[in-house]
């Protein structure tokens, strides 16, 4: 299966769910997806077309919270990034962890660092932050302010 047939197949099977397709280069394609249909899109890419789930990344942009799910086709050297824009007042999306185990930890990380809720995640515990970290403070958001009164932020010289 080559690049064109993969993209054609994706466009055909997800034609109601795709918002935009940005063909960046020969090995990189961004596909905007509606937040509600991320599980269907992942199903098509991962289960049906045989892509590998590489990683997901969350970005706090000015207007939206953005999640990119990176899927790679290693044999044809193609990286497809599914882009989901979540409104800031409703940070919820379906979890992909029931589909493939690789999404488990990255969703836990995005949950604690950005505060995105993943519905249907099997085991939503803290992954990186320490126990004494307060609830509801998300360090990678734009509006994060220092909460720790004991922190020392000078170089001591």
């Amino acid at each position, binding site marked *: 299966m080559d690049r064109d047939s993969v993209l054609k197949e994706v466009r055909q099977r997800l034609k109601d769910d795709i918002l935009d397709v940005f063909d960046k280069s020969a090995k990189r394609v961004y596909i905007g997806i509606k937040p509600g249909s991320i599980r269907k899109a992942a199903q098509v890419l991962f289960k049906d077309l045989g892509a590998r789930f590489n990683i997901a990344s969350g970005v706090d942009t000015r207007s939206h919270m953005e999640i990119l799910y990176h899927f790679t086709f290693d044999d044809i050297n193609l990286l497809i990034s599914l882009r989901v824009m979540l409104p800031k007042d409703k940070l919820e999306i379906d979890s992909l962890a029931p589909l493939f185990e690789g999404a488990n930890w990255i969703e836990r990380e995005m949950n604690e660092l950005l505060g995105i809720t993943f519905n249907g995640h099997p085991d939503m515990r803290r992954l990186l932050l320490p126990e004494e970290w307060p609830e509801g403070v998300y360090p990678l958001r734009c509006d*994060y302010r220092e909460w720790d009164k*004991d922190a020392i932020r000078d*170089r*001591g*010289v």
Partner: protein
Amino acid sequence: MSIKLKALLKSPWVFHLSTGSCNNCDIEVLDCLTPRFDIERFGMLLAGSIRHADVLLVTGSANRKSVVRLKQLYEQVPKPCLVVAIGECSLSRGMFIHSYNCPVPLDKIIPVDVYIPGCPPKPEAIIAGVVKLINRVSEKAAAKK
């Protein structure tokens, strides 16, 4: 000079602790132990357990999770012990000074005897720092007597 201090300075066993470093300082510490720099000519050996060590080599920026482990280890070192901070991160946290996860510098957590700056410091700098420390401690002990 007490027999304890004499034994410590004759052959300081070092324990190497990384508190969230990028591993570059750790590679340089490892370099010191290899035949090219051969830190063993000063009697220094890498100790496998903190309970056998005299010198604690700390690298990294002391993040919130590793501070707990750092305090535990410092309680377990046989005293007297010397603490060596290696690299910019353990001195002042370097580029991570405003990080949400690195609130307090290392020398506000445990007492530090010698600072070795650099990102990473050369093995020569690490050896020079430790040798200077040994000389200073033995001079101090001799002056006290």
